[in-house]
């Protein structure tokens, strides 16, 4: 797994590639915490490079979203191709991530 953080005024972009499962969950959690601490009002995630995810990653996403929204901030996912592994697993587990994909304004 590979995580890259790019900060620009107003938002923070986290790109994650490779596997994001239970074994990577600690590393991911600390990356997410950093993003939270940055104070950026919008945190964006670029996840199209993920090759495998499991329930722990989705739980982290939900937790990050909750933490951001309690501080009046928001989380957005960059567009994912249809049938992407993240969408598949989320669908399978009955977790709604599509709302994170929609309607959030995002600079290109």
């Amino acid at each position: 797994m590979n995580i890259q953080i790019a900060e620009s005024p107003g938002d923070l972009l986290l790109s994650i590639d490779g596997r994001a499962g239970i074994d990577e969950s600690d590393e991911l959690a600390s990356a997410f915490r950093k993003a939270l601490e940055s104070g950026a009002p919008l945190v964006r995630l670029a996840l199209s490079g993920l090759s495998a995810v499991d329930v722990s990653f989705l739980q982290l996403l939900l937790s990050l979203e909750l933490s951001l929204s309690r501080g009046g901030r928001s989380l957005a996912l960059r567009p994912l191709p249809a049938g992407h592994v993240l969408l598949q697993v989320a669908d399978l587990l009955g977790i709604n991530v599509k709302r994170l994909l929609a309607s959030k304004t995002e600079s290109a």
Partner: protein
Amino acid sequence: MNFEDNQALFIEEARDRLQTIEGSLVILEKQPADMDLVNEVFRGLHTIKGSGSMFGFQSVADFTHHVESLFDEVRSGHFPVDSRIIDIGLRSVDCISLLLAGGDGGEERLGILSAIEGLEGDGAGERVSRAVRAAEAEEGEPRPRVTAPGSGPERIFRLSFRPQKDLLHRGVRLETLFRELSSLGSCHVTAVTEAVPELGELEPSLLHMSWLITISTREDLEAVRSVFIFVEDYCELAISPVELGAGEEGIMVPKLGEILVDRGFLQDSDVEEIRQEQKPFGAVAIDKGKVSAEHVEAALAEQAMVRTIGSERESRQEAATIRVRKEKLDGLMDLVGELVILQAMMEQEAKKDSAGAFASLSENLGRLSADLRDTSMSMRIVPLQEFFMGFQRLVRDLSAQVGKPLRLEISGGSTELDKNVIELLKDPLVHIIRNSADHGVETPELRSRLGKAPVATISIDARQVGPRVEISIADDGAGLDMGRIRERAVEKGLIGAGETDEERIRSMVFEPGFSTSEKTTDISGRGVGLDVVKRNLERLRGEVSLSSEEGRGAKLTLSIPLTLVIIDGLLVMIGGHNYVIGLNQVQECVDMTASARGAGGRDSMLNLRGMTIPIIALRESLMIDGDYDGLARLVIVNSEGASVGLEVDAVVGRKQVVIKPLSRAVSSIKAVSGATILGDGSVALILDVAEIVRARIGR
């Protein structure tokens, strides 16, 4: 589709219908008051007439018209069901088949028509045609046949799944579990995520979620529960079936509030309170904080599933089946088979790809092609009812021939089987039923003396047992004459005079040419015995077993795999080549011991837990030169009830293989029953174990 295709389709369909009509007539003869049967005959004839004229089979349509009119009269009570009606009906079925085959029916047709006229007498003709016009106006097209996949009726289960927090530490992959669950039927999953804490408090490897699942499936509760077998101890799991309330108009769809109360998320008083608002129930319930959004979502999903089942049951009344030529389905199966092979090749390549993207694609393709394979295979699978009904006529005719009153009882006709397999079962079943009628069942005089019902019963029953279908044919006749069988077997030198093992003696009837019958009749006993049935079944990878109770009757049970296209095999290696042995025949694999080899040659034996079993060196059977210098393995197989060890160089492992036809040019090679293509593109032969054993041991 062109006109010729349609014509061929019509003929095929008409033949199926005739078979049903025939079966109904035979039952009708015994239950003349059963108006459902009369209606069935009438509707069948009506359809044949209608589509016959549509596809240019005017002679069929014209003739059928008269017979149909007769049965319409019967339907409206103008004629009682008697032997003359049944006789005319059966003769007409034969005559229509003749017309379908392009004949003109000749005198028989005229004979039937004048028989109908004779029945109708004065003025009836007019009444008949009037009745037919009326029937056409009201009836329209009769309802097409219904085929329902799966085993049980569609049911809905509610699941509440609350894993322990440390579930993921136990190596459980929830994704796999949910995928398995969704393979049972249509499945709606809602994760309850309200307990997921903020990042600050989150222990990322612990689970803070639970799930509400609604599944609509033909499987039973146990099958649903078994998905959770590995996590049962680490979770709270509640599974409950949803009662489908049936009303006058079919299934009643419950209100959202009712579901939520039923699930224990709301009180009746809450429902009243929310209803006051006169706004969408779910939204108010959530707004008022009575229930979480997830619970509403799960309840809505359940409601939708009930609605779907309701409308499916309704539409099933009118039924949506289409007829497809078997060749097309076979073609589809071939393509799917190729896809499965290609996918296996890809999977092998994907294993080399460590980056993972290709591997996950390949995994998805694998799942998809497995689903596609199952779906297309299910298309060739049809209910046995129609096939079984065809035997009604046979039993009726046999009854007349042998002079014994006989009755055929059919059950389990909704059991489904591959159409290709069904075709191959016809001869064996005819043979078995003839045997029963001829030898199994006593004369009526003898039966009365024995205090048995004078009418003998032959019954056919079918049921699915796992991946196989069991068809049993039983009679309430005299049962096997064990003394006589033993006598004959000893005479023929098949067993020793001191043999007492009943099962061994019983198995003698499967020996080639074995017959205890003194006289040869037209019906059976022409030296073609149960051995032929047995061999035919083996070609279908099926098995036959026989049970009998003296004075009470005998029962043959045929066990057949659901499909012939894909088998579970054991891949073995001999002389550098791969071979496949059907897994259903394999008992176990053991190492070849030095002592067994020491005996040497063709006659070597193995002592397996006190049982001495013969060993066949497959190298010799398969004409492979040279010796294997490693430690050989023995695959213990069951062939014709006996254990035999097959010596191979190595056992590679279990594998599902797609059976490919061998060219006719090499179909004379007996040791091989087919071939398959492995993941690396090479061809592996599928061994005909029974033939190999027969050739070497000469059973």
